[in-house]
């Protein structure tokens, strides 16, 4: 079932169930609880996508509304029911193990939210001063972050706290607080019931839309570069998978050497495209005398430097070491590419390849960068690529 169909199903089912619950219990809050539980499921389907296939769900603000508006027992019932339905609705998303992990993570965050909210309400003796309520809600919203990161770390779900992740969490926390205040009010003031979360979710939905667009565009951009990187492989110039393997190895080495995110991004693109220029050069008449690597690098770097977002990658491919930061990136690319040639193309053992690189004259390969290669190889980071 497509995402839009799942969303439509949850909206319709939530409206029907909520209306029935409201009719059955007109003076109580069961109807609102059912509507919010549906909102929780909807929030599980709509996520703010971050890097590395991670995401923050829009269900977290709804948890705050539920925690602040209902008893612990009703909160637990709504969360358990919503998470079970969400698990069923994720039936065609990745493998079952991942679905279980996600469910555990979400339940942990829900538990963290209610524990902090109820705990602080008890500590403040259920004080209804505006500042106290806002601080309590803020603390419960902030508590979701460490619980989420800790669970991701435990469950190996790529915890991330990048710049984009920080903004996502800020949007989630501020919207959750506003939605909760709208639902419960403070000391009987400002309460607008179920309309509060509904209306005050609008800015968050705008943020969701923006995150979606950014994610789609970033993926398309990355895939276009990967697609271009395949050209020398399809042309039989380099072994299949060479560019991708070199890029993965280079990024891992950059991580070990503490290269900045921006420079790592340039390095990754350089690694993916470092043979692209060769497709524009005439085939040598004598196949036993391939085009010199320096000529390929020169042609490729000229092409890349003409394109603004790829100019940094062009400098790296050109071997431009005038900037000390670039010098490390240039060395990483050279070592990663030569290492892949020795292992994948020539079929040598990794240890032999490293030994070969180490035995080259000192001015060819930087000792520190070779050390990073050894650490990456020892850590087994290449297993997934090979």
């Amino acid at each position, binding site marked *: 079932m497509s995402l839009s169909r799942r969303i439509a199903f949850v909206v319709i089912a939530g409206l029907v169930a909520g209306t029935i619950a409201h009719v059955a219990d007109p003076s109580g809050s069961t109807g609102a609880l059912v509507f919010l539980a549906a909102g929780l499921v909807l929030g599980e389907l709509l996520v703010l996508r971050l890097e590395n296939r991670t995401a923050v769900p829009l269900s977290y603000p709804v948890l705050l509304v539920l925690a602040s508006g209902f008893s612990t027992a009703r909160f637990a019932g709504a969360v358990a029911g919503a998470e079970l339905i969400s698990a069923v609705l994720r039936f065609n998303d990745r493998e079952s193990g991942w679905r279980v992990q996600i469910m555990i993570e979400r339940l942990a965050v829900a538990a963290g939210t209610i524990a902090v909210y109820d705990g602080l309400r008890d500590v403040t003796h259920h004080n209804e001063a505006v500042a106290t309520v806002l601080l309590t809600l803020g603390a419960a919203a902030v508590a979701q972050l460490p619980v989420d990161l800790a669970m991701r770390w435990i469950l190996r779900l790529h915890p991330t706290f990048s710049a984009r992740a920080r903004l996502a969490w800020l*949007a989630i926390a501020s919207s959750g607080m506003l939605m909760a205040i709208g639902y419960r009010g403070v000391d009987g003031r400002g309460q*607008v019931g179920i309309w509060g979360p509904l209306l005050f979710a609008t800015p968050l939905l705008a943020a969701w839309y*923006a995150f979606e*667009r950014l994610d789609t565009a970033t993926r398309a951009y990355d895939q*276009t570069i990967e697609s271009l990187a*395949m050209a020398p492989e*399809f042309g039989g110039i380099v072994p299949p998978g060479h560019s991708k393997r070199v890029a993965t190895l280079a990024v891992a080495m950059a991580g070990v050497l503490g290269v900045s995110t921006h420079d790592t991004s340039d390095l990754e693109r350089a690694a993916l495209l470092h043979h692209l220029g060769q497709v*524009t050069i005439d085939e040598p008449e004598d196949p036993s005398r391939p085009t010199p690597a320096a000529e390929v690098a020169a042609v490729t770097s000229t092409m890349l430097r003409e394109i603004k977002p790829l100019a940094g990658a062009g400098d790296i491919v050109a071997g431009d070491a005038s900037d000390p930061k670039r010098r490390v990136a240039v060395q990483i690319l050279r070592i990663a590419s030569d290492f892949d040639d020795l292992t994948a193309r020539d079929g040598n053992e990794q240890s032999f390849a490293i030994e070969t690189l180490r035995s080259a004259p000192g001015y060819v390969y930087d000792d520190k960068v070779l050390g990073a290669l050894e650490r990456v190889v020892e850590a087994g980071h290449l297993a997934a690529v090979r």
Partner: protein
Amino acid sequence: MSPFPRRLWWFASAICAVAALAAGLLGFSERHQAFPFGAALVFGALVVFSAHREVALPQGAYLSPAFMVCMAAMVVFQHDGSLLAPLLVGMLNGLLLSGLTKATWGWIPFNAALSGLALLGAALVFGALPPVMRDTVPLALVAALPPALTDFTVRAGLILASYRIELGRLPREVVRELVPMGVQVFPFAMVGLFLGRLYLALGPTVLVLIIVPILIAREMFSSYMQVKQSHDETVQLLIRALEQKDPYTAGHAERVAVYAGYIGEELDFLPARMDRLRFGALMHDIGKLVVPNQLLNKPGKLTEEEFARVRIHEGVSVQMLSHIDFLRPIALHAHSDAMKFDPDNLDHPIEPYIIMVADAYDAMTSTRSYRKALTQEVAFKELRDKSGKQFHPACAEALIRAIEKRNEVHGKGHEEESHFEHAPEVGLGSAGLGDLLPDEKAKQ
């Protein structure tokens, strides 16, 4: 921001005079009551700040936190019994200072007066509503409609008049452009109204809580626009690589993308689909990257072996384009056999057919190594003759219609540049495209 037109001076002056008169009258009538300075300062600052932070939505719509803040301010000032405050805060909504130059400053008083009068109208209507409607949920949701409509009507009416005076545009045309704005007004008005209620109950903190996600949405949109631009520029890398390999293709990919865009417009494609079509057209020859230069530029006939090697590029194009998620639906049909029109295959996406028509039209109307460009008439005739057989009829007709509508002429005598000055008038095949001479084709 475009320079302020002289034709609009008297109209803008009249609007400003009305706003100034309203401010004077309201100031006089409210002289005995306390002006809500604190709230006016908070909302005024927030309106100016948020007016500069619009979020672009699809279909050319914008999400501006400023309108929400104005609606919230209207609720707060209605509670304080002031009409002067919404007029002044509304005027601040027109203070769009970005891109301001000497030639454009005239827009400031015009926009300020227009926005102020619109919010004053909304506040008057909101104040006239029965209290039960303003204060009871869910009736308060409906209460958002009259002031929102008033704000929109005043604003749209004045914009309509200014367009009429400045450009002589028909009201119907302008209304069509303004309707999407009107549709988004109501939900934001509801949020604004409830925000105002929360402000009255809890103070200014709530304003921060709603502005934060909107600013983050804007930040993400900026990043999205940057990535999109980088993507566009990166596709240029492919185009340049192809042009280096095969000089005939200079400008070919861009022209195919333009023609494909014409067809997409004629077929009422939505922006997302247009985007996919454009990228598909720009990248349709990506597989040629793996064809050796010597073969692409071979002036004479191709041997069987060479022909087979050149044909590989189509399969490679499919594989390379399939790697890009959003192009995959059309990439799977990017093979020349699959691009030929097949009326029985109803599941076939139309984009590959469009690209084939655009590609063929550009091939016919541009000079190549083996022959000069054909005239536009010949190209149109060829498209029509093969419509329903080789070309999708709707796509072929859409391209002809779009080009005629634009009064464009392509082909012989109308090319911008040609790399093949000495190409023969009549040619038989293109080595670059992997074509064989007719007798070789027959053998195939």
